[in-house]
């Protein structure tokens, strides 16, 4: 099977996963979604009515305005098949959700707009920036440490394992954030502790980017400290188990240098499994990273969720759930493609 066909099969499979996941989410949040649709219709209708009242050149009577507003509200609701039988409603609303029609927020705003899409689009890039940076550093450092640890297998590592496990399974990244804020931020004043840029915003793109990087240090650090040990440990075990395979022995017998064996043979063979583990680690740490944003006042999706909980802003929360599901699946899909690239066997035995 060629790579193209592999991509297509995977794409179909992931699309089906997306449909199933979204359906479950939809059914679980059905009542909230209906509430959100009606409230959005009302909010938009009020806005529409005020626009009509302002546009005096149309010279409408109050009764006309009333009818127009009602018509507008009805047409918005009918876009969501609000009064249709359930199967139609299900299909139409899922379609609207997948095409990112989440309506208007109750309270929250982004640049004055209450459109949920605009709000999420405003916060999402910051989450992606923070999380991608942390993840890339985690994978690079974790793989390097894991390899080094595998080289010196059987040494002090085994004693460190329980400590790593405690950190990995119980240390909340957001709590660590608190400590970093108190220690490195306020006491030593090494790094900024809150937000994404300095106030007032510095001039010039370089100054702005450096400022963002500076603000990112502590949140990235707290995500790293929690995740790094666990990931390095997984890489180490995978590499050690690969080292026992016959082809490694062959490579050594051919007189290749130890580092060449490690990088060109062992790492290459272990990389599909490492990719799987990386994907699992990433999905697992995503929730914690979202909460870390709250502690650092990092204007991303996590902070948005926190504010939405505070304001009972249901449309925003619904929007976040669906957008994150789509993003997570796209991420997993890309991961799967990388997997396929790294391990030709997957492509062949894909069916």
């Amino acid at each position: 099977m060629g790579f193209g066909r592999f991509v297509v099969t995977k794409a179909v499979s992931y699309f089906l996963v997306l449909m199933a996941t979204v359906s479950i989410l939809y059914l679980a949040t059905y009542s909230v979604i209906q509430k959100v649709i009606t409230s959005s219709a009302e909010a938009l209708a009020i806005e529409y009515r005020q626009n009509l009242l302002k546009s005096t050149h149309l010279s409408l009577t109050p009764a006309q305005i009333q009818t127009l507003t009602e018509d507008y509200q009805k047409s918005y609701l009918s876009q969501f098949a609000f009064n249709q039988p359930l199967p139609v409603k299900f299909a139409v609303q899922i379609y609207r959700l997948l095409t990112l029609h989440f309506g208007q927020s109750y309270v929250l705003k982004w640049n004055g707009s209450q459109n949920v899409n605009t709000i999420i689009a405003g916060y999402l890039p910051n989450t992606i920036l923070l999380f991608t940076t942390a993840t890339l550093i985690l994978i690079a450092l974790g793989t390097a440490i894991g390899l080094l640890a595998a080289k010196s297998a059987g040494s002090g590592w085994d004693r460190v394992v329980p400590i790593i496990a405690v950190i990995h399974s119980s240390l909340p990244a957001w709590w660590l954030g608190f400590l970093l804020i108190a220690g490195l931020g306020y006491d030593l004043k090494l790094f900024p502790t809150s937000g994404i840029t300095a106030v007032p915003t510095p001039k010039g793109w370089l100054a702005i980017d450096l400022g963002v990087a500076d603000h990112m240090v502590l949140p990235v650090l707290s995500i790293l400290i929690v995740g790094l040990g666990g990931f390095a440990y997984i890489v180490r075990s995978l590499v050690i188990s690969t080292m026992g395979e016959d082809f490694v022995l062959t490579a050594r017998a051919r007189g290749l240098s130890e580092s060449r064996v490690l990088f060109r043979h062992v790492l290459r063979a272990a990389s599909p499994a490492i990719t799987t583990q990386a994907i699992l680690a990433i999905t697992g740490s995503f929730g914690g990273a979202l909460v870390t944003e709250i502690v650092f006042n990092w204007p991303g999706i996590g902070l948005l969720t926190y504010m939405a909980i505070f304001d009972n802003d249901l449309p925003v929360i619904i929007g976040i759930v669906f957008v994150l599901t789509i993003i997570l699946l796209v991420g997993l899909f890309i991961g799967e493609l990388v997997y396929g690239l790294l391990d030709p066997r997957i492509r062949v035995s894909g069916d």
Partner: protein
Amino acid sequence: MTSQTKRVRPSLVKELAKSKSALVGVAILLVLGGLTVYSVAALPSSFSQRWQNGDAWVLYPVDAPPQWVTAFGYPEAPTVNVSLSHWTEQTISVGTENLTEYYASVSFKWSSKVFPQNIAFVPVFQGSPSAITVTWTKPGGGSIDVSVSSPASGAAYEAQSPSLVSATTQYLLNQTGQYDTQPTGQQVVSAFFGQPGPNILSSSTLKGTYQASVQVLASSPVKMSKSLVVVIGTSYGLMGTDNLGRPIDLGLLAGLPNALEVGFLVAIISVIVGIVFGGLSGYFGAKKDEVMQWVALVILAMPALPFLVVISFTTRLNLWVEVLLISALSWPFYAIIARTVALSVKSQTFVEADKAMGVPSYRVFSSHFMPRLIPVTVAYTVLGIPGGILLAETLYFIGIGPANLVTWGGILDSAFASEAAVFGFWWWVIFPGLMIIISAIPFVLLGFALERIIAPRVSTK
């Protein structure tokens, strides 16, 4: 199956007992268990309501560090709680009236140079005494008389109560001849603990023995109970207090049973579902395996945190709903592990031999797969408990969870809202987080010991 597991079980316990880290784990677990029993037994069921009620904590200092910091040279005033329990009774005549007088007295030593935050007197009685007079005698011999007419039982008379304010005004007038303004709470405390100078506020406390004598006058018999004199210092107890005066140690104790309960239940449910699902998936293989893997992926793709947030808006969360939701989102992780184990068993020649000999599939599953999956289940249940606790506390931290519950995450949430990290209230941040970690340690140690014992058996080499 039975013969295999019977052989496994006793040796498992024996091998565990050999592992030092497992023993440490068991020891910590016993301590946590003891604290849980104590928490359930000692704290009344109404404790969570009391915790939410800010008025219930007036006798505690606010934002106070632990009392033991004084041992490290930090000048903090301790919180002193003395009770008046031995009341003497005598009848006295005032004019034509016969009154009963009740009297009690306590003294305590004060050695901190820092003024306390507040001072409070809490009379407890049955009946209706006409007046209470508290005579406060300082080490130097100066004394302040506080009179409360028609006192209320259980009420806290503190520095800003009218009776203490007027007593202080009178005292300062006598001492310095100055009568400027109504003294503030801080000035009242200053008058009770210091030598008033020309600026009324004195700079440091008088060290030595303080005495509080209480005289209760009543026209009808009154039953006096244990009353309190509380010097509300600037430090408190083992772990300090929060911005409402709530002791952190008490809150952590109250949050322990819930944390363990959620952790245990989430781990048991999600691991059993995950192992059965993943085990069967690996055992079936082929098309069925593919479908089951697909189902696991569907669940894995749900963004757990925001999803739970939405659900919390649709349903009133209670412990079970919360546990089931968290479990429903966590089992795929265990399914992946179990599937790997099942696949490795499946590739063994003895499985193929059994199949070739026509052994029924349920027997193949129970005799070869189950014995290897059960230890994995045990190990991962133990290892899964900290994950359950962590997710639950994370949810509490962002304000999602059953109402009226004292939780570690909730305490950290209020610390965050009050910017405890900014103000340097480290005790409010550190101890709840440490509890999350400490509650995880025994399970991680035990789980690892178990895994190490089980691993050679699973690999079937």
